[in-house]
């Protein structure tokens, strides 16, 4: 009679022994394939990226256009912001809104919420107002907070790039806040940077009047009117002379 348990054990040993080379080969093959495919995919990704950047700019542009159009359809406000951004970058900042602020007290007193970060968003807000009025989008709220911080921020920026628009903005702000000395200083700085900016003359004149230097203001305005024939300056001069503006 055969020793079955021993024979079964020997058979199991034989099977493991006979399958071992195949298992090892299989594992090695799998590892090689995995490693190869890993490197292959990383290389192909690079190639695709290069191809995308080199060969398909038109397609990407078209895609971008499509995306912009889609986003316009979904978010029309965002589109107006982007387009207006381009305009502001090219043109000099329009300060006409300040006038409107001055004239329309209701608008001045309106609680304005202001984005904290930079001046550019503020400029965005200025231009955004137009589409808001035109399209009457009720969801937009203009945030303005902490004016002194804004002034500090703009002051800092002005120190960096000496932009007359910024100094004029500061002059106007200081004038609004009642700090006429600073207002006149920044108006003068703006004037020194660019003599053609009418508002710098007007703010400077107004500040002089507020500081009690009415004569000097009148003289200044007369000089400016003789050179520029500005109607705004003439109106202000009449107002000062008549005592309407004190």
């Amino acid at each position: 009679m055969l020793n079955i348990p021993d024979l079964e054990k020997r058979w199991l040993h034989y099977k493991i022994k006979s399958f071992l080379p195949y298992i090892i080969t299989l594992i090695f093959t799998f590892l090689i394939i995995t490693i190869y495919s890993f490197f292959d995919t990383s290389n192909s990704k690079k190639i695709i990226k290069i191809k995308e950047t080199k060969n398909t700019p038109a397609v990407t542009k078209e895609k971008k256009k499509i995306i912009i159009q889609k986003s316009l359809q979904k978010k029309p406000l965002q589109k107006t912001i982007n387009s207006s951004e381009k305009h502001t970058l090219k043109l000099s900042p329009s300060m006409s809104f300040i006038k409107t602020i001055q004239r329309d007290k209701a608008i001045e007193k309106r609680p304005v919420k202001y984005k904290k970060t930079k001046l550019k968003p503020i400029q965005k807000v200025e231009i955004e107002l137009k589409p808001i009025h035109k399209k009457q989008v009720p969801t937009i709220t203009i945030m303005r907070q902490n004016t002194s911080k804004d002034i500090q921020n703009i002051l800092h920026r002005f120190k960096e790039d000496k932009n007359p628009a910024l100094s004029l903005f500061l002059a106007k702000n200081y004038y609004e806040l009642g700090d006429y000395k600073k207002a006149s200083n920044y108006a003068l700085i703006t004037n020194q940077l660019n003599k053609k900016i009418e508002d710098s003359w007007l703010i400077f004149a107004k500040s002089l009047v507020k500081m009690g230097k009415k004569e000097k203001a009148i003289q200044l305005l007369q000089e400016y009117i003789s050179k520029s024939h500005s109607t705004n300056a003439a109106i202000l001069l009449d107002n000062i002379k008549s005592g309407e503006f004190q």
Partner: protein
Amino acid sequence: MKSIYLNSKNVFIDTVNSKDYIQLDRVSIIYQSLKNSIQKPLKMILLYGKPGTGKSMFLTKLHNDLSPSQNIYLYKTPILDESEFYKLLAQDIFETKYSGELNFTQFIKIVNSKKLESIPVVLLDEAQLYSQALMEKIRLLSDTRTIKFVITLHKTQKEDLIAKEHFKTRIWETIELKNSSKTELKIYIQKKLMKANCFDTANIFTEKTVHKIHKLTRGNYRDTNKLLYTLFDLFLSYEERNRFDKIPTNKIPTKYIEMAAIQTGLIDA
């Protein structure tokens, strides 16, 4: 009740018995060719092949078939002593008992003194075990055309050398026996089992099973017999342990064939 596996196991006991001879097409043709060669006036016939290809069975079968009609003598085990060899031949063929040493010259004298009606046929199995000197004497005897020799050799490099050096010019007929093919092996196994009325076990040898057996034994009859003997012994062992779930009913699992191969040494585990 006697187990069917016991009968099947006994079928594959490795014995050389002409009754166990299995008629296969290719083997039958070879056998007929050998029988015809004996009738021809040939000096010597060489039957060669690897161990287990059925050379001994061939000689036994030939002896059994021809003994009623012809003077035929079979020597399954080699007679290594030269004198003993001559004495045995003198006694068997020429009915001459010789006491003491008998050398080649004395034996030739006996051969020439006895005139026989037909040329006796001497079948020598395992001829590779005979000494070179004795083989040379056998050649000389066959040259006298008084005795016809049919010798079997294992086909190895050494035996090839013997064949070349001693019998190259003298052997008129050489017959090679080869291992069986898969088909032949299946017929061999099934015929062997059916001959012993083991029909149930004969049916469990499917193509796949025989293919596996052939792979392990390379169609060698002796190895096949050993393997199948152990295989049925394995089934008997399971039966004795009452593990009937392990005993196959319609086909033999490869596992058992491999286990039997491990036991017989065909697989080195």
